[in-house]
């Protein structure tokens, strides 16, 4: 943004103040995330920069907190680091177990949310869709309703899902969903759905319906039209929706606190325990890894967005 030639001195001063102010706000946004990274290499169990760190003395830095992520929970952490040590870490280390749970839950809930969400988005973006606004409002609501309310409701429901059937005069016996992978996956899928709907419908706004008609008039059946014409065009939107859903699940802790059992200790749940229990720099090491992970995701989403705009022929703003 350039300053016009006719600007007065006051305006110039004001303009530079404004730029400095914006710089400070950007700093406020990014500094907390960046500051975690060097602190995770602290050789001491403190959350601040030691004198050695400030002097860039290699003594002040160490990988001990990253190492503790591996050894925490292992049966024999002090054994020599050979194949069986790594096997032990893979099977028993708490953070690795948490990562495995997070990935399982994240992947399956994403698949569920993306499939159902994309189908629904296709329906919602048709002009003929009845009650569009009301249905959209219901489908987006998991994002709006406070998570504590959602988690509380799910906690009761998943503990005894068959209670629902008593409303229809049935009294079947069935298991519970709370404390199972399926329960957490269903819960996370529900929370991820609004993001899929929002991103996919946004992609479909620029979608040219005449392409479908052209395909149909050339003799393609609906299925073929979908997979050969619609899908490739909306794919970037679907993938970024899926990534949003994955991140939602990967970062979710309240629903996990309420409905997960001992087997579904995810990374955020483990972090929550760690923060409440004893925030050692090991938490900062996890945080650093997660920041790197989110940078990778952000890059992917940005590339997809640009590709999608190019595909749909929308020039970027």
């Amino acid at each position, binding site marked *: 943004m350039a300053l016009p030639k006719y600007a007065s001195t006051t305006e110039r001063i004001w303009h530079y103040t404004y730029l400095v102010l*914006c710089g400070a706000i950007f700093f406020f946004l990014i500094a907390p995330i960046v500051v975690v990274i060097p602190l995770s290499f602290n050789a001491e169990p403190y*959350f601040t920069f030691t004198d050695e760190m400030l002097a860039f003395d290699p003594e002040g830095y160490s990988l001990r907190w990253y190492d503790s992520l591996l050894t925490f929970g292992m049966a024999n952490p002090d054994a020599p680091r050979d194949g069986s040590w790594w096997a032990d870490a893979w099977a028993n280390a708490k953070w690795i177990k948490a990562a495995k749970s997070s990935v399982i839950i994240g992947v399956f809930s994403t698949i569920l949310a993306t499939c*159902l969400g994309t189908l629904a988005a296709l*329906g919602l973006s048709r002009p003929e869709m009845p009650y569009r606004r009301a249905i959209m409002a219901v489908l987006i609501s998991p994002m709006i309703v406070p998570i504590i*309310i959602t988690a*509380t409701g799910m906690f009761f429901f998943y503990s005894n899902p068959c*209670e629902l059937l008593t409303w229809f005069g049935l009294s079947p016996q069935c298991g519970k969903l709370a404390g199972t992978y399926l329960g957490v996956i269903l819960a996370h899928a529900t929370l991820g759905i609004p993001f899929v709907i929002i991103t996919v419908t946004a992609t479909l706004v620029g979608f040219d319906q005449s392409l479908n008609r052209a395909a149909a008039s050339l003799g393609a059946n609906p299925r073929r039209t979908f997979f050969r014409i619609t899908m490739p065009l909306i794919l970037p939107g679907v993938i970024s929706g899926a990534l949003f859903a994955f991140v939602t699940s990967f970062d979710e*802790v309240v629903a996990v606190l309420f409905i997960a059992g001992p087997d579904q200790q995810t990374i955020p749940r483990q972090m929550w325990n760690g923060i409440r229990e004893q925030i050692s720099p090991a938490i900062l090491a996890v945080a650093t890894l997660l920041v790197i992970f*989110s940078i990778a995701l952000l890059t992917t989403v940005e590339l997809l967005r640009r590709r999608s705009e190019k595909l749909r022929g929308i020039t970027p703003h």
Partner: protein
Amino acid sequence: MAHSLDPQGAAVTASEIAPEGPLRTADGQPLARALARSQARARRQAFLLVLPLLLFVLITFVVPIGQMLQRSVKNDGFSANMPQISAWFAENPPGTEPDAAAWQALALDLQAAAEARSIGVVGTRINYDMPGTRSLFTSAGRQVRRGIEPPYREKLLEMDEDWADPQLWSVMRQASTPYTANFYLAAMDMTRDEAGNIVRVEEQQRVYLMLFMRTLWLSLLITFTTFVLGFPVAHLLATLPMRKSNLLMILVLLPFWTSLLVRTTAWMVLLQQQGVINDVFVWLGIINDSQRLQMIYNQTGTIIAMTHILLPFMILPLYSVMRTINPSYVRAARSLGATSWTAFRRIYFPQTLPGLGAGALLVFILAVGYYITPALVGGSSGQLISNLIAMHMTRTLNWSMAAALAAMLLGGVLILYWLYDRLVGIDNLKLG
């Protein structure tokens, strides 16, 4: 997707021709009927695409919340386990002195409940409305478990004189039906006195209204700070050339994509008394080492961390509206003699209002229901209503109370959500 008949195309043709007599399609059907049929089919198809997800969300989300809200008015801890005395209450109008039949019903119910080991549940239910009575039930239960003989009234009074307390009988009467509004009363810091009138609770017990007010006030404050911080940044991003603004946008989007727990942890590290910010202040000589600032485990911590976390939700909608504002309006105002301030206030700012409204409502809605961040950095003065719901869910286990508070919070959020839909439109919700 492929329709043999395109309804819109057909409608255009029909109006262009403007014929006399009913139009017919190629196969001889009346056009109006064919059109209606094809449109109905299109509607059905669209609806079928949405149906699986709608059912999914209804089952995994709407029904559970509905079920939970039912608990705010339903608690059968007393009525289900004390059937005889409940029946006595139903037969006799309020104000009836407990007679021999009532004492007998009470004693036999107590015995049955003690045997079935549900006496604790009964005591807990009455204890909600009248603190200190739980042990009355459990200790009576222990004594009558092996059996109780008449005269019941005298036997019970021998165990504890409090059994004759009229307030106890009034509370038992209220609990003798499974449905009650008492939990909503309690959620508004009110209770019933002996005669059943609604009164405010004692001053030192009032907490919920104050917390609702605090939640509103902190959410408003956080919305305001995100506006103050978000507006200049969004404006800068919207007016910079694309390449530069895309680069700076990363600084907004990275926090948006970073785990909530990571950001909260980061603030804990920064704001601690022995943390980075205090260290910097001491090093700069702004404060003395012995007077480090308390910036966490209080409201300040909640406000700072939540402002940071919610800021992108303000910047993104503002940015997308500001992008579309034509800079020539401001230039025109300037060329007509307006000062830069007037041009901003009269021309530019009004055009940003849709983005501002969207951002502010979204931030406010999200802030009102926040739980994680206040729980970790809020100390005692930075707790919000969500934290109290969680406390009743997990600590005191007064689930009916948690449900009543949740229902009130949910009501507020849904009104705001409706407002958002009316003013902004859910379709306009954008992410990144």
